[in-house]
């Protein structure tokens, strides 16, 4: 910047902000006013404990469906994933007391889908 430039010199001599600052009290008041208007726009995040609890409950329910009373498993069967579910053999919604056969479906860790049909009347 050319220090001897007349325009620069005049502007600096007449600088409206020379030696000026916002007073301490006024700064404090302004700060409080501004912070009172702050809008928290951060996205809502899942709370880890709540989500972990929900996940455990889901796994427990799935496990009960697969491993609960009435389901038969071969010792050699792959460990079922939480996706395992018991379904009726046909598409109709019927109670377990009325049906003699049940199906157990699950997916192995390798991705193979296994469907067991459990028929107490089955004979070789």
């Amino acid at each position, binding site marked *: 910047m050319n220090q001897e430039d007349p325009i620069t010199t005049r502007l600096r001599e007449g600088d409206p*902000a020379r030696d000026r600052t916002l007073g301490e009290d006024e700064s404090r008041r302004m700060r409080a006013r501004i912070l009172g208007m*702050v809008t928290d726009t*951060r996205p809502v995040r899942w709370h880890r404990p709540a989500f972990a609890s929900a996940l455990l409950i889901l796994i427990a329910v799935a496990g009960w469906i697969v491993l609960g009373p009435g389901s038969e498993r071969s010792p050699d069967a792959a460990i079922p994933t939480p996706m395992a579910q018991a379904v009726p053999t046909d598409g109709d919604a019927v109670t377990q007391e009325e049906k003699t056969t049940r199906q157990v479906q699950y997916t192995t860790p390798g991705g193979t889908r296994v469907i067991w049909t459990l028929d107490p009347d089955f004979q070789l």
Partner: protein
Amino acid sequence: MIEAAFSIPAETGTDPQDRIGRLFDQHHQRLYRLALRMSRNEEEAHDLVQDTFLRIAKKPSSIPETESGAEAWLVRVLVNLCRDQFRRRKVRDDHRADVTGTGSERDHEEAVIASETVRKALARLAPRRRAIIVMHELEGLDAREIAHALGVAKVTVRWHLSAGRKELATILGPKGDTP
């Protein structure tokens, strides 16, 4: 889904109030001085600074992540507020009056008169040009820094500097002369 739920947020613990409070503490004086040079009086300068911070308070997500980016952002918001004011008030028409002020003002100290003269002369410039002149001549920033602060090209800064200085030379006239 599990990964997303357990991912750590990018700004863990960055409360918007804390961030804006820090920005205020770091930059409000600089913005006040800029506002004094950009506006017609102290009250207007005060409102400009406050409105600048209020604007970012309403939308904290718009603040750039880096400190230098945040400072430039604040300057830009202040200059844009000046531009809005300028358009609303059609300042050019109001400032066709004698730049050197009235007779009663000549009774004041010379420094006050000089300050008022410069303030009124700067007010005759369009806000962006005014901001560029102020930042270069009074804050000592170079063209690159001004371009970054205002989000414009360096060539635009140089053009406004050249045109602004010519305009001020016409408005202010030779020192000691009354236009």
